[in-house]
């Protein structure tokens, strides 16, 4: 394994680790708060996902004079949650488009009284024809967005797919489906709104303080000087706290403004699961032309995403999904056509991977379907087609990063014992016992940072301030949610200036104090924002009049000297994102460099399938990836292991059960996530081929590990059983219906 010299980070502990370990960390619900009201939401009821609100009836058993009641008429500005398109209301105004749409907000000092009051409001909906299956074309009376209910249509084209398919010696087709997934962050959504003088202050669990700020600014028609958003320690996000917290912040703010008192809103698990976003369900079709020895000649891919009842982030989820759909392979002729469509389901939104897990599941499962059709070793099929330096992706991005993708694959095969285990499994399965074993592989990639010109558009700003006591303070809007931002930023800044980790302070993500360094999403924090930390450290050093090589004592001394010479002044190094040279993207043609850098990976899953119950147990897992540079190995391993566990859940057990476009198994009793007993040993290895424009050479890591597990596991099940599963979650119930291998074969 290639390894650079150890950074100072090797010994850096997670900065907030002790507070979390000892239970002293204060999440939003733990903050001391006096004289406040609880806030709750009255939502549109099942069974009508779509219709007009004809009446709102307040029960007679409640003394409503004790309650603060807010509806859409209380909005000072436009009734819109500001995002890509301004189509989603803060509170329903006359019509609803999905079950559980927020209609009214109530506040009261007593939480139980509030719960009873919420149940005492009846929202009457006159139903209209809903769209509930994203795979079916909409009838004319079901159209609710544009001419055809298509929220976004995108196409990527390279070469001549029609001709290449017509001439290909072998064509393999396949259709694959993936289900929704619930984030199951440990800390449910929560927000406090309070007026402090003229300033409306929002404190809460969130990934993107400036998204919340912008949403407040727009819908409350309130300028930034009278708004302040502070992220509180966040117990997991996984994308679920990317766009959704804007809704809750607006709700809490409206109640607080009307009540003239602080308002706290904390969702319980049932409301959180029923009413907030999930991963987009998807259907992906492949038509692939190949030579008889397995070389890709043409990839024709059609992607369909269920967008749910509002646009939310579906266009960009679709975009990332499409860009990753052809896999980490070289092919001259590629056509990827994708649509995100409207349905009357609770809107889908950001979730770790952001469209890529869906399309990569299809791609990697399809590679094994191809391998079986050709009678070829799935590892060899991938090795033949993995993209080499100098070759281009579907968008025409020439890959030239020096990373050895075949070496990543080979290492995964070695560590997993691929060849020996496949032989051993074949012998084991030949005994026809009720238990079968199999090994499955996925090779994949994930682009770090915003897609295309996104990072340029964000214009992220970041500051590193020099303090009078010789310490420095990193000021960014990027937040800690368990993934390690505080620790990694500490390491990057400490390494850059030769300071001890405890000489680095990370400022609270408070929009009154930190510049907008962009959202904490898209695997961009370490790679993109971490690089801004380095550059801001350099800028600070320049402002001190130090040379580029100045580190440690000389920096500390210069900081103290500067402050002695400039009492009561502040010293701030500041930078704005600059596009790395040679990166070009054309959004009109969808061609060019989709991402600054891709991380590359090969994952191997081993499974045992019990033919009696069709229960699948993942018995071993190997995850190998080249992420440029490992900045903190413990945290990096944690990201990979967590992603694999989340992937096991998505592949095998996490199933959202729908009724009228809403999740009905919205409790952890019936939405099944893996326990520690369902998780195999996860063996993680890193290769490091530095990316020159990432912090210390790092590429994005956060999302990569959710892309590979599902296809690797399904491929292993296919290998173990001879079945051909195409849909996840592959629950035992689903596997039993497709399992023609049957018990007659088990002797």
């Amino acid at each position, binding site marked *: 394994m290639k390894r650079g010299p150890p950074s100072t980070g090797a010994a850096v502990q997670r900065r907030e680790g002790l507070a979390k370990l000892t239970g002293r960390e204060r999440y939003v619900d733990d903050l001391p708060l006096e004289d406040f009201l609880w806030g709750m939401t009255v939502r549109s009821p099942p069974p009508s996902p779509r219709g007009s609100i004809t009446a709102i009836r307040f029960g007679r058993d409640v003394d409503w004079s004790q309650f603060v009641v807010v509806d859409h008429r209380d909005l000072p500005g436009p009734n819109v949650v500001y995002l890509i398109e301004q189509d989603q209301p803060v509170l329903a105004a006359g019509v609803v488009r999905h079950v559980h749409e927020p209609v009214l907000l109530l506040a009261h000092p007593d939480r*139980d009284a509030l*719960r*009873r009051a919420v*149940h005492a409001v009846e929202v009457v909906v006159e139903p209209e024809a809903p769209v509930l299956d994203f795979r079916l074309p909409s009838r004319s009376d079901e159209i609710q967005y544009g001419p055809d209910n298509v929220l976004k249509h995108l196409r990527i084209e390279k070469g001549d797919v029609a001709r290449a398919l017509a001439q290909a010696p072998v064509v393999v087709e396949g259709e694959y489906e993936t289900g929704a997934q619930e984030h199951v962050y440990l800390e449910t959504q929560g927000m406090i709104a309070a007026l402090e003088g003229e300033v409306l202050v929002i404190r809460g669990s969130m990934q993107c303080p400036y998204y919340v700020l912008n949403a407040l600014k727009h819908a409350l028609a309130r300028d930034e000087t009278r708004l302040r958003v502070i992220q509180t320690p966040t117990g997991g996000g996984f994308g679920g706290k990317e766009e959704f917290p804007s809704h809750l912040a607006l709700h809490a703010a409206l109640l607080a403004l009307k009540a003239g008192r602080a308002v706290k809103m904390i969702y*319980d698990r*049932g409301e959180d699961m029923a009413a907030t976003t999930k991963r987009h369900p998807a259907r992906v079709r492949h038509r692939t032309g190949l030579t008889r020895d397995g070389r890709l000649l043409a990839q024709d891919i059609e992607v369909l995403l269920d967008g749910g009842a509002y646009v939310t982030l579906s266009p960009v989820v679709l975009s990332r999904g499409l860009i990753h759909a052809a896999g980490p392979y070289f092919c001259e002729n590629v056509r990827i056509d994708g649509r995100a469509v409207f349905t009357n389901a609770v809107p889908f939104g950001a979730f770790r991977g952001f469209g890529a897990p869906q399309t990569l599941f299809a791609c990697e499962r399809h590679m094994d379907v191809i391998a079986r059709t050709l009678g070829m070793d799935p590892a060899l099929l991938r090795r033949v087609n993995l993209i080499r330096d100098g070759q281009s992706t579907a968008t025409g991005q020439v890959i030239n990063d020096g990373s050895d993708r075949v070496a990543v694959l080979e290492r995964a095969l070695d560590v997993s014992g691929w060849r020996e285990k496949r032989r051993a499994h074949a012998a084991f399965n030949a005994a026809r016992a*009720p*238990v079968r074993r199999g090994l499955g592989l996925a090779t994949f990639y994930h682009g770090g940072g915003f897609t295309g010109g996104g990072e340029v558009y964000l214009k992220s700003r970041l500051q590193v301030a020099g303090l009078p006591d010789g310490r420095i303070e990193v000021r960014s809007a990027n937040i800690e949610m368990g993934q390690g931002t505080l620790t990694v930023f500490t390491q990057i800044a400490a390494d850059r200036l030769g300071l001890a980790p405890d000489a680095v302070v990370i400022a609270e993500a408070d929009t009154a104090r930190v510049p907008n360094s962009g959202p904490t999403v898209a695997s961009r924090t370490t790679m993109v924002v971490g690089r801004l930390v380095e550059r801001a450290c350099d800028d600070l050093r320049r402002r001190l009049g130090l040379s580029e090589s100045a580190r440690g004592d000389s920096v500390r001394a210069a900081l103290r000297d500067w402050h002695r010479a400039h009492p009561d002044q502040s010293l701030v190094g500041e930078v704005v994102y600059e596009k790395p040279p040679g990166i070009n993207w054309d959004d009109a043609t969808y061609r060019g460099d989709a991402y600054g850098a891709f991380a590359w990976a090969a994952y191997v899953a081993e499974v*045992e*399938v*019990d*033919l*009696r*119950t*069709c*229960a699948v*147990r993942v018995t071993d897992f190997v995850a190998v990836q080249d992420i440029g540079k490992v900045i903190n190995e413990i945290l990096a391993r944690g990201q990979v292991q967590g992603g694999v566990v989340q992937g096991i859940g998505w592949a095998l*057990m996490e199933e959202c*059960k729908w009724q009228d476009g809403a999740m*009905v*198994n919205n409790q952890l*009793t*019936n939405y*099944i996530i*893996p*326990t*520690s*007993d*369902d998780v195999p040993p996860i063996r993680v290895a890193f290769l490091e081929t530095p990316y020159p424009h990432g912090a210390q050479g790092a590429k994005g890591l956060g999302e990569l590990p959710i892309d590979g597990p599902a296809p690797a596991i399904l491929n292993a099940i296919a290998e173990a059983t001879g079945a051909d599963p195409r849909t996840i979650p592959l*629950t*035992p*119930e689903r596997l*039993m*219906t497709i399992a023609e291998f049957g*018990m*007659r074969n*088990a002797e």
Partner: protein
Amino acid sequence: MSVLLPGSRREALELLARSNGAAMPIAGGTDLLVHWPQRQEEHDRAYLDLSGIAELRPVEWTPDALVLGGLTTYWDVIRDARVGRELPLLAVAARQVGSIQIQTRGTWAGNIVNGSPAADGVPVLMAYDAVVVLESVAGREEVPLERFYEGYKQMRRRPDQLVVAIRIPRRPYTFQRFVKIGSRRAQAIAKVGLAVTHSAAGGGGWRVVAASVAPTIRRCPSIERLLEEQAAVHSPEELLPAIARDVTPIDDIRSTAEYRKLAMARVLFYDVFRGREQGAGSTDHGRRMTDNG
């Protein structure tokens, strides 16, 4: 909400009688807690907290029975080494209830009166011919567990009665097996549960008890008959008609009727009908069916 805190069994029975059946006895409280936030209406009633009644806790071995107290927990049984030797399915099932935290609070009597068709403790008790001992101020009554349930959450316990003991006859067994098919390897609710025993002793024979496939946990007389008659069964499919006579699985939020029938047939075929021969010598008395080891 009002909580009654009796200090003795006698006092508990009197409080129960006086409340006219309105008070709900609580032992571990583990079933109550699950729905507590959602069921506001259950907050406004009287609860009879049994936790102070020490006499209901101990496990007692008599010459011909194991007697669990009304407050005996799963953990009490797991820790009793004689259970592991003589009535091992009790320990096997107890270990598959919820988490260790639940096992240390939840009680066998609570598992019976909660009446869930998916209970983990009830199937093994029924397969061991357990008898429910009920007591009220009017006196004691004993009901065999297999006749205790009358319908979904309907049972032969009057509101003034407490389950004060569960009596399990001591017999030598030649076959004992508990299988729980859950949605994951731990902390799962059974999609199918099966407890199967065979004893050659007087009053013995085959017991096949199924969970999560009918409105109540129940014995499967048709399957038992096939075993008693030593019928030749060549495939899981041949068991389906008997399964259809014995149980009525449904599609619900956890599984499907079809899956439940097929999984039950396959487990019975491979683990019971084929396992009969080696049953006596086997020490592997139970498995999680997500556990393929």
